């Protein structure tokens, strides 16, 4: 029995040795600035994660072509977090203690940002967050910044446009159904939706969730139809979005407004297949190719992104997340140039103080690291014909309805009118 111990010992030792080598990097004459992060390259959020990575790599190449930051080239060190939070602590400590990167940014999504928070907080590091919902609510960490334009009330930002638009209609809708996935983002969005419905005096007549692995959505849609709501707010991931849209049409659920927080109606693979079935649906969005949303650099970015995306096999439109991943890096890059260094405190102070020009427009952060003002838009699919992907690059298809400063068209109301 005792003879086996050495085997175990050797295995353990080998394990540590292997995981610790490979970090004695070469000391180049002009030391690069190294930025580390984990990213969902596989697992449930991989579609977004891979797109974000591509956008960040485009930023890196752009910066390096222009001579780098502070005259130093930028390098990335990144690992696949497999959309599994338990890999994140290991990844970030490896980045910091073994790879000794200069800066870290977050991976994609709330669940993958949260496990990294205590690690960056312990070391007082600047931490740029990519699409996290309320990650800083408990921590109130002053060096955390989050690029999605959710504003000071993140949960409510996805539904605000939907319910504001509803409240403006005459007669004002009286009842709403709320439904969504049993998952992180949809649950947050539903919390916000409940708040807005209450605030605007719209009665909630159905409020339920379903498991993400649901196959048939028609029973849910029928139950909603039976409560006869004026408007229906759905917070869902791609399978749920697809399932709800198809089931609603099959069952004949035609409320006055339909949509809300449906993830997936921003990706080519679903847009092209759903085609005209999308008409009339109101959804949240961050960026769409409408004239009111043009900002300097975004065209140029998309021109680089789209061919690269086709090659990499990720979403070829890239309206949802990639510009924001790029913008996040722009904020970081501009702060480094302006503070002329990598001092975490100075960087954080600078990002708090200044407004940034990015491909998604002007960015200004509030005290909690969220956008000072929220800028999530509500848009409606209009005039979609056939299944051609090109139409989604044109204005007038994903019409921005709210907020007013970005408005590019009018809500077609009720829903059934848009479906003719």
């Amino acid at each position: 029995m005792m003879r086996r111990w050495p085997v175990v010992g050797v295995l353990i030792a080998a394990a540590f040795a292997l995981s610790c080598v490979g970090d004695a990097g070469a000391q180049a004459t002009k030391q690069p600035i190294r930025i580390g992060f984990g990213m969902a390259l596989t697992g449930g959020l991989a579609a977004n994660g891979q797109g974000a990575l591509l956008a960040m790599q485009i930023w890196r190449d752009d910066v390096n072509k222009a001579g780098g930051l502070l005259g130093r080239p930028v390098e990335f060190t990144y690992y696949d977090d497999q959309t599994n939070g338990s890999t994140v602590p290991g990844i970030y400590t490896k980045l910091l203690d073994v790879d000794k990167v200069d800066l870290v940014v977050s991976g994609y999504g709330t669940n993958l940002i949260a496990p990294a928070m205590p690690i960056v907080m312990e070391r007082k590091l600047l931490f740029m967050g990519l699409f996290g919902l309320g990650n800083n609510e408990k921590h109130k960490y002053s060096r955390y910044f989050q690029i999605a334009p959710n504003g000071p009330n993140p949960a409510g930002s996805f539904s605000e446009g939907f319910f504001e638009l509803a409240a403006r209609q005459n007669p004002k809708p009286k009842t709403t159904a709320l439904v969504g996935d049993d998952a992180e983002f949809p649950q947050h969005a539903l919390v916000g939706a409940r708040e807005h419905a209450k605030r605007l005096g719209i009665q909630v007549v159905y409020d339920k969730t379903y498991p993400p692995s649901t196959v048939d959505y028609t029973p849910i849609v029928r139950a909603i139809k039976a409560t006869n709501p004026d408007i229906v707010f759905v917070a869902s991931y791609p399978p749920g979005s697809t399932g709800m849209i198809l089931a609603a049409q099959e069952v004949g659920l035609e409320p006055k407004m339909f949509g809300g927080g449906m993830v997936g109606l921003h990706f080519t693979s679903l847009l092209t297949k759903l085609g005209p079935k999308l008409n009339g649906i109101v959804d949240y969005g961050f960026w769409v190719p409408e004239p009111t949303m043009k900002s300097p650099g975004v065209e140029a970015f998309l021109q680089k992104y789209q061919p690269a995306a086709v090659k990499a096999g990720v979403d070829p439109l890239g309206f949802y997340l990639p510009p924001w991943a790029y913008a996040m890096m722009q904020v970081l890059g501009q702060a480094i140039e302006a503070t002329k260094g990598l001092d975490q405190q100075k960087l954080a102070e600078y990002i708090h103080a200044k407004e940034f020009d990015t491909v998604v427009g002007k960015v200004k952060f509030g005290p909690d690291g969220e956008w000072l003002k929220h800028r999530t838009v509500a848009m409606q699919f209009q005039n979609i014909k056939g299944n051609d992907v090109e139409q989604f690059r044109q204005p007038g298809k994903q019409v921005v309805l709210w907020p007013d400063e970005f408005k590019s068209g009018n809500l077609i109301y009720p829903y059934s009118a848009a479906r003719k």
Partner: protein
Amino acid sequence: MQARWLLALAGVLIVGAFVVTRTVDNRYVYFAAYGILQYVLLATAWNILGGYTGYVNFGTGAFFALGAYTSVFLIQAVQAPLVVLIVAGGLVSGLLGFGIGYLTLRLRGVFFSIATLALAVVLETMMVNWEYVGGAKGISIIRPSAGPLFTNYVQLLFVVMAALAMGAVAVAWFIEHSRIGRGFATIRDNEEAAECMGVPTLRLKLLATTVSGCLMGIAGAPFPYYITFVEPVSAFNLSYAVNSLAMPMVGGTTSWVGPIIGAVLLGTLQQLATVTISSELNLLIVGVVLVAFVVLAPEGILGLLRRGTRRTRA
């Protein structure tokens, strides 16, 4: 007397782990080691039921998550200290283990496995709908301070997990070398014959499911402090079920050493793949290793070693 030596060795290892925290500042070592030790614990726990008695539990994730959620509940409710969390997590999951033990009265083989799988689904749905522990949204957990002995909380977690893993291995060792372990083996080999040779099979199976479940719950108890954000998808992750089953298989299921070897090997491989290859290929490697091992080394690494020594002696 062998037991005494092993006990001493375990003590030395725990003290060693503590000493490591005095000398090594590289925190990645702690996180990586925590992950591997957690798998040593889970694989050993699984093996007590699966390897020794032959009842294959597909629901490791459920027991692990139940331990983790017990902790979340206690942290939310009373800010309970880590020791209490570990004890409570073990108790609650042990109770669940006792419950599924009664299933073995009627369910054998794959039927039992399917039942544990079903149990995991039911339990996950409950957690998803329980707002107090975060529901589907998940919940942030703030770590307490590490206390005077450690410079940061991760070191503390590492030492705790090292001790827990060691404890689990000790339990497995004692079972294996006692009458209980031999009784377990008769159940695995032929339950009816075992009963007729005077082995109280139900009582032993209940013991196995309870101990195994308890250890899995203990593995999950510190998880909220490790990850600081608990949500059902990562707590009930399929990888716990797959790994806790695959690791003993790769190492060898009939001995307490097997799960250790498997956990260290597969755990390290996965950790390495995460920080080197970092792409879809990561999962591919796990798949290929699993297939290669069960096809080429059916009795695991221990089996290979045994065959090797037999050949050299011959």
